């Protein structure tokens, strides 16, 4: 009886490990989308009233994290003229869907209450406007840090999503020859 129980446990563990390994292998084989550069548009919040400092912090933290995650792709800002006509440019449009502004004081005093949470809908499109990837990414701060730390949390997660789904092309971003007079 004792041996039967031990053998059954070992068999269950082995089966679980086998399933996990096959799942990880399947994820690793998902082909990444080629991207020579990413252009980050300013964060939009048409439906939600988002304080200006949160909007700017989301935008700047996102650019910082995308540059740090690297993959050697070039990161362009909203309105950057150098991004015009770049081949394999991925456009990242972010829209705030949910914003719950907590209170750092409540977090400090109660620990369990006062969390700040932001949910942003991220849409990656190519030069022709075709949607390559869409995700809802949530950033939050629960215990330590100011409210703006939620924007940093969001940026890290968004950069991870970009890193997992896009790969930089080996050569530098190519541009078409046209250049506007002004």
């Amino acid at each position, binding site marked *: 009886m004792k041996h039967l129980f031990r053998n059954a446990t070992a068999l269950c563990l082995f089966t679980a490990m086998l399933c996990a390994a096959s799942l990880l292998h399947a994820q690793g084989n998902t082909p990444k989308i080629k991207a020579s550069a990413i252009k980050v548009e*300013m964060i939009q919040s048409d439906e939600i009233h988002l*304080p*200006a*400092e949160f*909007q*700017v*912090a989301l*935008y*700047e*933290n996102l650019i910082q994290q995308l540059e740090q995650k690297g993959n050697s792709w070039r990161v*362009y*800002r*909203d*309105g*950057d*003229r*150098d991004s*015009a*006509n770049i081949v394999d440019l991925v456009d990242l449009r972010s829209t705030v869907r949910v914003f719950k*502004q907590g*209170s*750092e*004081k409540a977090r*400090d*005093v109660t620990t369990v209450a006062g969390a700040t949470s932001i949910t942003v809908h991220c849409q990656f499109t190519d030069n022709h406007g075709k949607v390559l990837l869409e995700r809802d990414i949530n950033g939050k701060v629960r215990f*330590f840090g*100011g409210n*703006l730390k939620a*924007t940093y949390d969001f940026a890290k997660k968004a950069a991870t999503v970009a890193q997992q789904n896009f790969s930089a092309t080996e050569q530098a971003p190519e541009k078409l020859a*046209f*250049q*506007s*007079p*002004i």
Partner: protein
Amino acid sequence: MLKAMGLVLIFLSALPTFCQSTSAYQVGTITAVTPHQGAAGSDPFGASYDVSVKVGDTVYVVLYTPPVDVGTVKYAAGRDLLVLVGEKTLTFHDQLGTGSELPILSHMTVATQSNPTPESPQLQTPIKSLALVGLPGVKDNTEGTLTVEGGKLHFSCSKGASDIAVVVMDDVVTGDDSQRVIRGTLGTISRFGPYGSGTFLSLLRSKVDTLTIQYRDANGGLHGVVFTVPAGTAESVKKELIAQGAHTSIPIQTETSAD
């Protein structure tokens, strides 16, 4: 007789020099670009823009229609270019050397840096500030001082400094907030103080103002910076920035609040 004729001829040859208007190319700075609100029935094929160009102490608003509208002109604010100001037109040469004459829609004289208006003295008293995020060349959450001088917002800290030109600021917004009196690593450790002392210290908070600025770099790329400044000082900084040419989406009298 011959001598007199020679003198007259010399005088006549020099006369055009005095009659010529001093027309020379000058450096102009594009300060704003807005879509042109054309009359009904105007050309539907090309978008036109009202481009504000500052030459010396005069701002000229000219009508520019790009040959191929790819939208890059919208981000031209802050660029310098050589212009020739005529009576009714403004001429500039693009990077290919092609000259374009643009009709002047309006012009106005603005106060120069050497003659600041008495109502808005330059903010030269440094204000203690914390650069939260986005300031180029400065790490996040860096303490320093803010001043507005020479047409620039100047942030100075122990490890360096950073400047932002006022004329390229698209939006300046203020808000209010609060922060812990004891912050940083010591503040985190103090939270675990015994007998509720950590909780008590958490209640000690100071009011601060936030100053959020959006501006464009030389390539038209949008940047954002967030500062915190002592309570009650953000509005004065915003007034000074607006007086020197910054734009804002919220008039000075309207206050935003955040807690």
